[in-house]
Every structure is written in structure tokens, then in C-alpha cells.
């Protein structure tokens, strides 16, 4: 009898291992960074960076990277062609970075992301970025001190996110804004610097609907833009000119770190077109101001006024650029729909967005000035 009691135990050992759905590391080539470019005749060209680990008898194995690209009709078609050039097959389920070529991003990018949304194995928290020039050039860079291009790019983007130069984005997070009417999004815009063999963060690529509008918000303006969007990273540093004449000098500049933001959006829907008012209140610390004298309340008031004026002007420029390329990256349309559904229904937001009146008003407050006056 005891023998029979053991039987189920042995059987479960044999049967419960599950032999069907194994995906073994030895059978695939891991891809950590990939990108797509537009190619001739409406085709796409994918580039993948494959990390090979050479096993050695002692210590960790040496890493070698292999960069392969191929053209095809769709992203998955290129995959077939890439597989034909490498040993084994590649696997994107650990992807960290996905780059989109500038020319390709100007088309409907959903088509190129569809395979990621559809596949249960894909890694949706891979970072996305638009590359000025071609992805192939960007991924082929060998950056000194950075053996893995994927780590280089994610590290760079994480840094920019912490310093409030870009919002938190990944393949999944942009999907909501990609599909939702009345809401557009931004992606980091990188360019290739061949001379120094590095990538450079340039600013935020503005998307209109599902495609790149072709213009990007320079990184100096990105901070204010994100603060207007209500996003703040670990710190939000801005350097602005206060006082001085036409010959700027280091003493004319102040650097502040915005600590707190309060944003209020209001819509006036009485007219034929809605009017938007963006009220943004900031509280900041002074990090750098060589002329000193920050103990006087009068001086602080003066500085605050000046910065307010400056920032309001800049906010107007940002909004002007957004409207010009028809990118509702602040999601004003979705908010209008949320709070004034009747007004929203009457409008064709895509057509009127460029013409509506948006008034930013910024109040700026200095709350501390470091350990010196």
C-alpha cells in the first residue's frame, strides 16, 4: 500500500514540470536596445543591438555587442530578416530602449508600436525616444566608458527626468495619450554627435495626434513646460537673466530650484471659442546669485517680479509653439471634455486648438536662498 502512496508523488515530479512553455536563455539572443527608421518605398529598417556574453572559465564573461539592421515591410517583417543574419533568434522581451527615427516618427507611430502592445512577452516599460537623424547611427555609436548603449541611453533619460527635462515615458504610458482625442504627448529628442561620438539630449519632440510634428521644444524651455504640465522631477532648476544690460555677465543671472508648484486651469466657454487660463504658482529656492543682498525683502520682491515677467513671456512662447504645430501636449482638450462636455461636443478640437486663446499667468515666490544671504 505504501508503494502506491508514493506513486502520485513520482508522477507529479514527472508531470508537473511543464515541458511546453519553456523559453531558455541559451536559445535566444537578448536585445536591450532597438530602433526603427524609415526606409525607401515605405519600408522600415530596424536596428537591434545584441549583447553576447562570452563565457570564460573564471570571473564574469566578457560582453560583446553586435549591431544588426534589416529593412522590411513592417517591424515584425524586419525581425525575420534580422534573424536570418544572426545565429539563433533574437528576443525583445528585455528591451530597455526603443528609438524612433525622426522621419519615421513623422508617420503614424502606433503602427510601429502595435507589435509591442499585442505581444504578452514584450516589455512595455522600455523607454522611448526620437532621434534626429537615423537610429542606425545612434545605436552604432561606441561611447567611451559606456559599454552598453542601452544603459547609456536609459541613464541619460533617467537623468533628464530627474532634472525635470522630460516626463516619465515608456511604451505603455504614451499609449493613453496616443489614442485619446484632446491629448497629445512629448518624447525626448536626441541627436547624434559624431565628432565626440556621443548622443545629446536636445529637448522634447512635440507630437500632434499620432505623429511627430517635426518641431521640438528646446531643453531650456522643457523645464517650464513640464512645470506647466504639473510634472516635477527630483529637482527643477532654471537659470534666468535678471537685470544687467546688453552685455550679459555672470552677475546678471540667477539660478533657482522650483520646489513646489500649484497649477490651476480654467476654461471660459462663453464665447464661440473657449478661452483657457493657466495659473501657475511656483515656490523656489535660490541656488546661485552672485550679487547677494537677498536679506532685503524689497530686493527679493524685485527679483520675483522680474522672474515672473520673464517666465510668463516664456510660457507664452511655449504655448505659441505648441499651437503652431497643433500639439495639445498639455492635454487641454481632454480637460475641456471633462469639465465642459457640452462645449467640447460642439467643437472640432483638432481644428480649433491652434486658434484658441491661452493665457498663462505665473506667480513666483522665493522661499529660501541657501545658507548665505
Amino acid at each position, binding site marked *: 500500500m505504501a508503494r502506491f502512496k508514493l506513486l502520485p508523488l513520482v508522477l507529479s515530479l514527472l508531470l508537473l514540470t511543464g515541458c511546453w512553455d519553456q523559453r531558455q536563455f541559451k536559445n535566444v539572443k537578448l536585445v536591450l536596445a532597438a530602433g526603427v527608421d524609415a526606409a525607401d518605398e515605405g519600408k522600415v529598417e530596424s536596428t537591434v543591438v545584441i549583447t553576447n556574453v562570452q563565457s570564460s572559465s573564471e570571473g564574469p564573461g566578457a560582453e560583446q555587442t553586435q549591431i544588426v539592421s534589416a529593412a522590411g515591410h513592417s517591424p515584425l517583417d524586419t525581425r525575420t530578416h534580422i534573424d536570418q543574419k544572426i545565429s539563433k533568434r533574437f528576443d525583445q522581451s528585455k528591451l530597455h530602449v526603443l528609438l524612433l527615427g525622426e522621419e519615421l516618427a513623422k508617420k503614424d507611430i502606433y503602427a510601429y508600436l502595435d507589435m509591442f502592445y499585442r505581444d504578452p512577452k514584450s516589455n512595455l516599460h522600455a523607454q522611448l525616444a526620437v532621434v534626429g537623424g537615423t537610429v542606425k547611427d545612434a545605436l552604432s555609436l561606441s561611447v567611451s566608458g559606456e559599454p552598453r548603449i542601452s544603459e547609456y541611453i536609459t541613464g541619460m533619460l533617467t537623468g533628464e527626468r530627474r532634472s525635470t527635462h522630460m516626463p516619465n515615458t515608456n511604451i505603455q504610458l504614451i499609449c493613453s495619450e496616443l489614442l*485619446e482625442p484632446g491629448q497629445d504627448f512629448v518624447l525626448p529628442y536626441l541627436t547624434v554627435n559624431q565628432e565626440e561620438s556621443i548622443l545629446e539630449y536636445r529637448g522634447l519632440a512635440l507630437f500632434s495626434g499620432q505623429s511627430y510634428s517635426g518641431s521640438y521644444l528646446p531643453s531650456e524651455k522643457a523645464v517650464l513646460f513640464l512645470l506647466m504640465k504639473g510634472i516635477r522631477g527630483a529637482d527643477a532648476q532654471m537659470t534666468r537673466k535678471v537685470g544687467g544690460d546688453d552685455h550679459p555677465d555672470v552677475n546678471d543671472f540667477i539660478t533657482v530650484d522650483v520646489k513646489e508648484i500649484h497649477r490651476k486651469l480654467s476654461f471660459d466657454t462663453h464665447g464661440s471659442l473657449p478661452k483657457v487660463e493657466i495659473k501657475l504658482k511656483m515656490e523656489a529656492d535660490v541656488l546661485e546669485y552672485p550679487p547677494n543682498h537677498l536679506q532685503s525683502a524689497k530686493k527679493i520682491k524685485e527679483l520675483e517680479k522680474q522672474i515672473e515677467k520673464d517666465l510668463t513671456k516664456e510660457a507664452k512662447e511655449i504655448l505659441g509653439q505648441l499651437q503652431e504645430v497643433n500639439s495639445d501636449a498639455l492635454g487641454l482638450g481632454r480637460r475641456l471634455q471633462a469639465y465642459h462636455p457640452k462645449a467640447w461636443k460642439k467643437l472640432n478640437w483638432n481644428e480649433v486648438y491652434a486658434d484658441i486663446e491661452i493665457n498663462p499667468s505665473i506667480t513666483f515666490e522665493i522661499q529660501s536662498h541657501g545658507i548665505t544671504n
Partner: protein
Amino acid sequence: MARTENKKISRRQFFFIIIQTQIGVGVLSLPFDLHQAAKQDGWISFVLAGLCIQLLIVAMWLTARQFPDDDLISFLPKLFGNAIGKLLSSAYYLYFVCVCVLILVLFGRMLHLWILPNTPFWVLAILLAFTCLYLISSGLLVMARIYTFVSILLVIIFLLLVSALPDIQLVYLLPVGQTPIPQLVKGAQAAVLAMLGYISFFYLYPHTKGTPAERLKTMSYANLFVILFYLFVVFVSFTYFSTSEITFVPQPVLYLLKAIELHVISRVDLFLLSMWIVSVATSFSTYLFMASKGLTDMFHSKKPSRFAVFSTTLIVVASLIVGIDEQPIDSFTQFVTHVSMVFSNVIPLFLMLYTVSIYRFIRRKRHGKV
């Protein structure tokens, strides 16, 4: 008397059995179903459905307290006489089998889609069904203990969802109240399907300690818990996905966790899926228990395990016939939804009306004569 009292489950265990039965296979797709029917106002539908179920619970309680020692299968003959009672009991047996089959195929389909595309469905079906058979053959008390124990997983599911909160956009819930009433009702119907399982009240009531009022209170707390838990799930899914995006994702709860990376776990969705399997298993077990207990009682048998094995085999075979292709599952879901409306809502209401009016009258008359 003391021995039967010992075999009864405590009210806390009763609470956990109810919530584990109600929270099951539907939790992953509920937000999608609600959104299909009622757009961003789906949560209103859900609250509506929760309130209706609360009323049903009171109705079931009014019936059940007339029969302090009988569960559904044994009080049906007392209410309607042997012939009709047996007929109704058999119908209920088939209904429970159908729900089991539905749970099994939805479970198989989900695993097939998300993690095990190559594993044949019969393996998954047998693994789940026979594990649950093992669980129910130990009796209600053991089941209750297991259910209480695994409820810790609900806390973990809750915490995982909390990690998605930084990325939500509350504006996706607005504007409120734009959905016409008929669609809200349709949404409520979808919600009821996800919360099915309250019918187990009829089976658990006689086996639970406490006064009738205490038991009703526990049941209502359980229902409230389920409503709040689901509401949180719906809230996170609705605000994480935009209004137009959610129509693309049939399993929003898994999908939103797929995009989150924790320090230790890279694919949170797979982690959630393994905990969800436990929730599915508990719902399945309760239905299997009700089915096989009903069958045993109908034949006045002393050998419940035979009927349990028979029911499990029947369910596995039926689920293999339905299969896990999209079309048959959809029609089968439709079918079970309609049947559930009758067996979980209409009949319990009718039973209540019948019990409090005609049956009380008949019994009084009968007692009067004796």
C-alpha cells in the same frame, strides 16, 4: 449537537468564503466589460449592481432563515414537494456545472494568452479541476481555513495595484454622468457576472455559527468588501488607461501591471497572474462543492467522493468540448450570463416571495391541524 456545532464554520471563515467565491475569474476583465457597456461611468453601473446584490442577499436571508438546518437542495423539496423540488435541484446542479465550466475555460484562455501559449488546455483544465477536487473532498471546514489563509493574496494584489497610482490621470473619469440609463443597466449586468457567487449563501448559511441577524451582517460585510475591492480595481484601470485606450485592452488589470517594474519583480503582471490563479481556484472550488454536495444530497448518498469525482470529470470533459477559442467562449459566456440571471437573481427572489407568503401560510395551517 455539540459535534455538529464544532463542524460549523465561524463567521470570519464565512466572510472569507464569500469574498473568495465572489472575487474570481472576472476580476481581470471587469473594468473592460464595464467600460464596454457604460464608458467612464462604468463604476456607477458597478455600484448599482452592488446595491442590487445587497437586496438579493436580504431576500436570500429571508428564505434561508425559515430553514435553519437545510441548504438549497434540501429545502427545495420542502417548499415545492418532491417532484418539483428534485427538478429544481437538478437544474441547479447543471447550473453550477455550467459556471464551473465557464470558470475553467476562461482560466484556460487567460493562461493561454498570457503565459502558456504552447501548453495544451487539457493539462491546465485537469490541473486546476483535480486540485480543487482534492480541496473540496476535505470538507467545508478545511476549505474555509484555506480560503481564509489565501486571502492574504488579495492584500498583495491591492498593493501591486497601488504601485500603479503615480501614473494615473484622474481626468479620465470625467465627465461623470454622460451615459444614458439603459447603458448603465447593461453595465450593471456585466458587473453582476463578475460578482456571482453570492448564491453560495444558501449553502453556507446552515453551516455557519451565529444568530440569523449576525450571519446576515457578516454576509453584508463580505459583499461590501467585494464591492470596495472591485471598485478600487475599476478606479485604477479607468484612470490609468485613457477612455479610448481601454477598448483595446480586454484584461486591463494585467496590462497595466505589465508596464510597471518593481525593484525585485520585473514582470508584475505574471506575478499577479499566479495569485489570480488562486482566486480562480477558490471560486471554482466553491461551485464544485455546491454541485457535488447537491448531487450527493439528491441521491441521499453516504459516499460524497464518488459524486465529486463524477462532477469534476463531467466539468473537465464539458470544458474541453467548449474549448478555448474566442467564438465558443463568447457564446458560452453569453449563455451563462443569461442562465445566471435566472438562477442567481430571479429564482432567489421568487423563493423569497414564495417563502414569506405562501409557504408560511401553508406551514401554519399544517401545524394548526396537527
